[in-house]
């Protein structure tokens, strides 16, 4: 490796550590302090290392609300992602393969989902009238509706890189449309599917405002909501607050580490085609 590359690496590593990593050290250090020490959070090391105690207290708060929240958030995320990937890919596929006025309109409408802020109270009334308010299923469907814009955008771009010849070959072999899609095209979409999974699952897992409106109630607590509640409840116990931040960052972190390599590959074709 050239000396310049090592120098660049060293400089960049130190700068990145300061800018990106130190804030998390801050969270970590303060998550281990006692309430008095954490009331003015700083970088001083804790006098007594209370990681385990704070961990237990945070998890036990409000009858293990955090564990229930993990479960709820995970169910919502997994459910929504499954539907988003399948339905979004289907839309992106036809929009890309069949340019026509209809598909252009459909594409515009899907993109509008990215731009228009959702109307909260009419959505609540709607959910109530179909009996889905305050249910996980309702929340899943909401997240799908709000996530379709981005998903369709990504899939449409990436499908452009899959040659039509493959479709045609399958059709000649007698495949029906749904078979062409599910058996031939979808498997080739793995990189962008993984990208969608990672980016959308982080976004849904970290979503705060939508569960706040559409999923109230103690049994429905989601992960960001625990942080919000803790902020009210533990205004004077910053150490537990930081411990909570730490704990709710872990699942996205796991997803990220797991799928890290595939993200870049997935982004490749999607971004390039715009």
């Amino acid at each position, binding site marked *: *490796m050239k000396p310049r*590359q*090592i120098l660049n*690496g*060293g400089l*960049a*590593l130190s700068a*990145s550590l300061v800018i*990106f*990593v130190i*804030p998390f050290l*801050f*969270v970590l250090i303060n998550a281990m302090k006692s309430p008095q020490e954490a009331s003015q*959070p*700083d*970088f001083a090391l804790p006098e007594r290392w209370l990681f385990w105690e704070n961990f237990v207290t945070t998890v036990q708060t409000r009858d293990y609300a955090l564990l229930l929240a993990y479960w709820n958030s995970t169910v919502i995320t997994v459910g929504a992602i499954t539907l988003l990937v399948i*339905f979004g890919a*289907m*839309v992106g*596929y*036809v929009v890309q393969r*069949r340019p026509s006025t*209809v598909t252009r309109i*459909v594409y515009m409408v*899907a993109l509008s*989902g990215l*731009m*228009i802020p*959702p*109307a*909260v*109270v*009419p*959505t609540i009334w*709607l959910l109530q009238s179909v009996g889905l308010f305050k249910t996980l299923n309702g929340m899943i*469907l909401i997240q799908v509706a709000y996530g379709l814009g981005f998903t369709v955008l990504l899939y449409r771009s990436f499908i452009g890189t899959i040659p039509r010849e493959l*479709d045609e070959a399958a059709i000649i072999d007698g495949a029906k*449309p749904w078979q*062409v*899609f599910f058996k031939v095209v979808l498997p080739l979409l793995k990189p962008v599917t993984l990208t969608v999974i990672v980016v959308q699952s*982080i976004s849904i897992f*970290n979503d705060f405002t939508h569960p706040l409106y559409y999923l109230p109630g103690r049994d429905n607590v989601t*992960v960001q909501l625990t*942080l*919000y509640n803790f*902020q009210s409840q533990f205004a004077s116990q910053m150490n537990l*607050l930081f411990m909570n*931040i730490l704990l*709710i*960052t872990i699942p*996205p*972190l796991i997803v*990220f*580490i797991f799928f890290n390599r595939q993200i*870049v590959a997935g*982004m*490749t074709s999607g*971004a*390039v085609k*715009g």
Partner: protein
Amino acid sequence: MPAKSRISPYPYWFFLPAAAIFVVFFLVPTVASFYFSLTYWDPFEARFAGWDNYVQFFSEPYLLRGTVNTLAFAVLTSGMKTVIGLLLAVLLTSGMMGQSLLRSIVFFPVLVSTIGVGLLFQELMHPTQGAINVALAAVGIDGPGWLTNPSLALFSVALVDVWRGVGLATLIYIAGLATIGPEYYEAARIDGATRLQQFWRVTVPLIRPATTTVIILSLIGGLRLFDLIWAMTRGGPGFSSDVLASVIYKQYQAGFWGLSTAGNVILFLLIALIIAPLAWWLNRRSIDS
């Protein structure tokens, strides 16, 4: 199945599942809200108001400030993410040591929730006891009131938003850079171009699609941003860091739901007016090149 599917292997019914969900859970409430923007609507009743809400929204004393803030914030964060994202991407594909670890580090802030980030930086940016100003004081600099100085508050939030989002921009750019074949750089090098000239003549033009994606996504995000501003300043001190999204939210919070919905409509129109021509212009040029 309709006859169309026999003609085309790309049948329209593929739209149905997604359309069902999207129309019911997004379009219907959105259209309903257009109606409600014409009413005095509080949590308990709705009385027709005609255009009154729009008139009231436009005569909101902080509207001008809020709109200026919104535009400034969006342009600033989008610009910074675009430029810094590209530079980071170039750096992280140059073959330096620890490259893939760095890519992960840079992307990491994207994973943390908005409230978490907001709380974290509220503490770090405390004017007298926050870690940032304490560090600056150690080298003799008097740190400003990042979130308490009205002229600085929105800018501080913008910095945090860039910190949080640049990883995604970098990722998109890295993907874009990966598609530029080495032969272009070869050709440029043979022509005697310096590294800087190679950057301007080869890299920048050929990653235009990635640039377009980054600009559009970050601009929409910046215009709509609410969570982070709310978590860090609630639009304060006073009203100095209010953007349209937080003005709208405050109306909602006060129970003026018709007024808030009217604001939402206005925000959507503003976004559409900015993004639509921009997207068309950017995409058009990429086809030409």
